[in-house]
Each structure stands twice: as C-alpha cells, then as structure tokens.
C-alpha cells in the first residue's frame, strides 16, 4: 500500500473518577483508606487556606509578589501523593501545595515568597530541587536526575510539574525526548490550568490535549481530570510504579484551572471573563472531594471543623515563625557562589561589600579608603 494512516505505538487515555457531585466510579475508585483520605483532604484545605492568607499578606505589604494555586490543589497533591521521600520532586513555582506535602514548612515558603534567600534551604530528608521561576527550565534538570538514577541503579523516580505555557518551551520537548530515549524513570505532569498569564490554552497550542504529545515522543500519555483528586492519585501512582519498575517515562496532563490571578501583580479581568471562572467554580476540587468524603462517611461536620481549625492554627504558627525569621540578612550573598574556595577577586569584592554594608546598616556615610 503506497499510502496509509500510521498511528504511534503509545496511546493516550483520559481519566476521571469523581463526578461534579462527588460520586466516584466504583471500579476506578482507588479505595484509599480513611486516614489517607483525610490526610489528603487536610493538605488540600491547607493549601487553599494558605493561598488566601498569602494574598491577604501581600495586599497588606507583608509579602512579596505571590503566585496563588487556588483550584489546583487536587492536581498538585495528587501528583506527589505516591512519591517516596527518597524520590525526587522538581517543582515549578506555582507548587506550594505539593511542596508542603513533601515537607516544606510554611515559614520556609513565606521566606521564599517574601524575598529571603534562606527560603531556599531545602528540607532535610527529601530529595527535592528548588522551585523554578524560569518556565520549563527545571524540566531538563529533572530528566537528568532521572537518568542518573538509571546509571546509579537506584529505584528512585523523579516527578516534575510544569504549566501549559511551559509545554511550549524547547526545554520541555527536549526533556520528553531525552527521557523516552533513555527510558528514564520520570513522570512529567503538565498542570494545564487554562492560562499562561493572559494567554489561553487555545492560543498556546493547536492540539486539544498536551497528553497527545506523549505518543509523539514515544511514551504513554494520560489526560486526567486535574480537579479530581482520586483520578490524580490513580494516574500518578500508575506512572510512578511504571517508572520505578523500569517502564520509563509518562506524560500526564492534569486538566485544571487557575482560579486566581496569575500572580498578585496581575489583573485577570483584562483577559478573561468572570463566567469562565464561575464555570470552574462548579468543578472545584475541594468541594467535590468533600462531597465524596461526606457521602462515604469519612468526613462529617465536626471533623471538617476540626480540620479547618487545625489548618488555621498550623498556618498561624507558621506565620509567627516567619515573622520571627523575617530579618533581612545581607551577609550571605557571596557565600554559596562556589563549592570550592572563593577566588581571590571575589573575596576582595566580598570584603568591599561587607565594609559598605556595615556602614549602611549603621546609617553612616561611606568614607573613602
């Protein structure tokens, strides 16, 4: 036959388990135990509450520019749920819900977003990379970490998340290719929240689903309801297990929505209509999960109240700690530049810097040396 249609080897599945009323597909329900369900629920509530708190703090001048994650709680916590501490997580910048699940403290995240370098002190006991402000830039890094696991014969896997906008960066396409060619143990999660700042997904790419890129690179893909925590847990668990057992990479598209502004510096009314946001409010990941938990008896009014107040208290304590720690420390800006001894020129610059710094902190005029 001189002409025929050829199809790629890998396929793309679509997965959704919870409907908008919180009813689960009985066959697909991952049937998590009660404690796990409550733990996940609490993590989602914590992410949402912290989100609101950080926006308020920013508006009151107590926080730097901040990128809220409202609406993406299921996509984020579902993604990292099945990772082991020894696995690696390479997050994009809009990931604090997932980062808290991994062990990042609230005060630490506040330090980061309020412009303190100490915010990059990585929590002990987990293999995470610092989040990436530069879009897509961390994805090759994550892929390299995964390739290293193969070289070193570990059974650790890597999970990295990035946005729909990031999917246009060469870095991301190159990573997908490397991962597939090297059969690297990595899970790529594209959190498709509908927008890259002002650009809607339809103008970012001509394809209907980012997951369709997976077969093009030679790996399985999945398009998952990203506002459905059960679907996110199931899909990533499957991908993580596959990676761990030598089955190579997976690309998961988590279809979700950015309910808030891009960052606190952004005004979304310029580029999107309120009714679009309202449509997605009906699909809110937390209220859907809540309905499921209430119907199955895992949650009731009193547990819900307890969780809300536990979360409030945890955030209050985190914020207290942040306030105590939030003292500009200008001494260290040279200290992590090189792993080896500082080159003499840099040492001289550091001395000059510290001299000027001391004068400025003391409110003194600089005097010529």
């Amino acid at each position: 036959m001189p002409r025929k249609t050829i199809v790629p080897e890998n396929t793309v599945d679509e997965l959704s388990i919870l409907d908008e009323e919180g009813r689960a597909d009985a066959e697909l329900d991952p049937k998590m135990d009660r404690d796990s369900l409550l733990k996940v629920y609490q993590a989602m509530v914590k992410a949402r509450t912290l989100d609101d708190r950080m926006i308020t703090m920013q508006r009151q001048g107590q926080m730097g520019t901040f990128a809220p994650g409202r609406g993406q709680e299921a996509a984020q916590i579902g993604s990292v749920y099945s990772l082991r501490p020894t696995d690696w997580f390479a997050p994009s910048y809009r990931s604090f819900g997932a980062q808290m699940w991994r062990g990042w403290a609230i005060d630490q995240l506040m330090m980061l977003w309020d412009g303190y370098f100490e915010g990059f002190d990585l929590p002990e006991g987990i293999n995470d990379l610092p989040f990436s402000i530069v879009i897509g830039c961390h994805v090759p890094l994550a892929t390299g970490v995964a390739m290293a696991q193969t070289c070193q014969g570990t059974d650790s896997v890597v999970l990295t998340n990035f946005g729909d906008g990031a999917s246009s960066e060469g870095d991301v396409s190159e990573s997908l290719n490397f991962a597939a060619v090297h059969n690297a143990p990595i899970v790529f999660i594209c959190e498709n929240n509908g927008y890259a700042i002002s650009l809607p997904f339809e103008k970012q790419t001509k394809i209907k689903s980012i997951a369709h890129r997976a077969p093009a690179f030679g790996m399985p893909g999945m398009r998952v309801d990203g506002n459905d925590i059960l679907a996110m847990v199931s899909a990533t668990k499957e991908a993580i297990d596959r990676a761990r057992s030598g089955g190579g990479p997976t690309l998961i598209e988590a279809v979700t929505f950015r309910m808030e502004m891009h960052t606190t510096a952004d005004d979304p009314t310029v580029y999107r209509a309120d009714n679009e946001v309202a449509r997605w409010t009906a699909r809110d990941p937390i209220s859907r999960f809540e309905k499921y938990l209430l119907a199955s008896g895992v949650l009731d009014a009193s547990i819900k109240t307890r969780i809300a107040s536990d979360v409030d208290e945890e955030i209050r304590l985190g914020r207290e700690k942040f306030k105590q720690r939030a003292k500009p420390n200008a001494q260290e800006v040279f200290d992590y530049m090189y792993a080896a001894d500082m080159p003499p020129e840099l040492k001289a610059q550091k001395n000059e810097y510290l001299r000027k710094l001391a004068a400025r902190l003391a409110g003194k005029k600089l005097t010529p040396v």
Partner: protein
Amino acid sequence: MPKMNMARALNLALKQNLASDPTVVVMGEDVGVDGGVFRITKGLLEEFGPKRVMDSPLAEAGIIGTAVGMAAAGLKPVAEIQFSGFTYQAFHQIEQNMARLHNRSRGRYKVQMVMRAPYGGGIRAVEHHSESREAYWAHTPGLKVVIPSGPRLARSLLHAAIHDPDPVIFYEPKAIYRAFKEEVPEEPEAFEIGKARVVRVGSDITLIAYGAMIRPTLEAADDLEETHGIRAEVIDLISIWPMDTETLAASVSKTGRAVVVHEGPRSCGIGAEVVARINESAFAHLEAPVARVTGYDIHFPFFQVERFYLPDSEAVVESALEAVNY
C-alpha cells in the same frame, strides 16, 4: 508637549511606528490582549489587529528565531522578551541568527528588528527578574545595544532602533518605567544610535552611567558639588554598543578623572570596556585610575537585600572622592 512616564513614551513610539510603517510588527508573550506585563504594548492589539500585534506562545527561542525570519522576509519585528532574565532561552537564536544572518547571507538579508526587554533591579521582584546582563549582547558581534534613562530619550531611542537597518537590543530599566514624567513631543524624534550624551557639565571628574543608574549618579554629582565643591560631569552612555569613545575621551581629557557606574557584575562588564576606551583615548590626561562602581560578581540577591547590591549615590561619591584625592 504632553508629559508622560517612560512606559507611556515607549508605547507612543511603538504606536507611531506601527501606524507609519505597515512592515512593523510587535510580538511577544502577553503583548496583545494583556498589553504586556508592564503595559508597554497596551492598546496596540485593539488598534492594529492580530496580524501586526502577535501574542506568542511561551517560547523565547521561538519568538526571536521567528522574528529574525520575519525580518529576512521584509518585516520589521519589535519582539518583546518579558524580562531580560528570559533572554537566555533565546541565546542561540540571538547569537546564531539575529546577529549573523546579514553577514552570512553576504548582505542579502537585513535583520531590521528590535529585541526589547525590561532589565535591572530595584522593584522587589522574584529571582531572575532583576539582573543586568547587557554585556552578553555587547560582546556579541553584529548587534547594537542601547539603553534609555528616561521617557523622552526612551521614545526617541526606540524610534531610532526600529529604523536602524541592523538588529538592536533595547534594554528598558524597569525600575524607572513609572518613576517620573517628562515632556515628550508628539512629533517623532530619533536619538542617534552610537552617541552618548553629556547630561551635566563639570570640570573635575567624569561620571559615566546609563539606564536606572543615571539618577543616583546625578544625585552623586549634586552631593559632590554641594558638600565637596567638586564639579562632576555626567555622561549618559545610552549606546552600549557601538560606544561613543569620542564623547568619553573629550570629557576625560578635560577632567582627568572618571568613575563608571553600572548594575551588572563587575568583571568583564561594560565598565571594563569603558575603562579600556578611556585608557586608549585619554591616557595622557588621566590623573587617577578610572574607577568602577558596579554590581558584584554574584547572582543578583533576593529582594530583601537587593539595595545593598545595587550601586547608590554614596558609593559613587566615595569612588569619586578617592579619584579626586588620588
């Protein structure tokens, strides 16, 4: 003459050039519907439509690479990179296409395009949003690099950049987008690329700066005069490449002393080039080594402590006094 800030002045330059020349196009992330994250392209999509004002997918290499292609085909793209910290995503396109296509087509294809990007510190921004790496582009043969220091200059310099037949890197000091207003004439004017400007006349020392550093440098000149009786001449470099050696040489030949100020890292920075030029052109007149007041050779600090990194007027005064008392 209407008074406007630098953001509006840049918008005016884009608008007038889109209106007067159908081959001018504007492209970049969020430049259309959103009008750009700093609102420099505000209203342009509405006025000129999506063929002239294009929202790009999130890919800087794509933006610059396709802009060069458009230029080769006869358009005059003005491509915005949202922050200069993301120009590295387009590094290979800048070096290998933007800077070279004219040369490697032996003059067949002109690359008449502008890459605009906000640069520099001082706005309490997150990581990667505050650096000054103009030296990369000044170091790249085939490009021109210009930086305005205020509204009127910004408008006339962008006008000149769009009209320049060669690729121009246009860095915008974001700290002063809305810091002050100036009168900007309605009629287009062009500031000649390759020229520096003496913005304050003096006889005792030459202070050389550009971009957002002009303001602390002028403050330093005031302080030197009021407190120390030293009359400083201040040069706004404006054109980083080509660099106006003549203006530098004429000033230093008169004053015998110089301090160069910039935000970017010191080593192999623009200051090093300025010092070399002064050495080559005015060595016999020098009474003291030419000093540099610059950023340090470190990554731009997180914003809580950025003020200790950025050169300020006091640091300029200190270096100037050292030079005078040498």
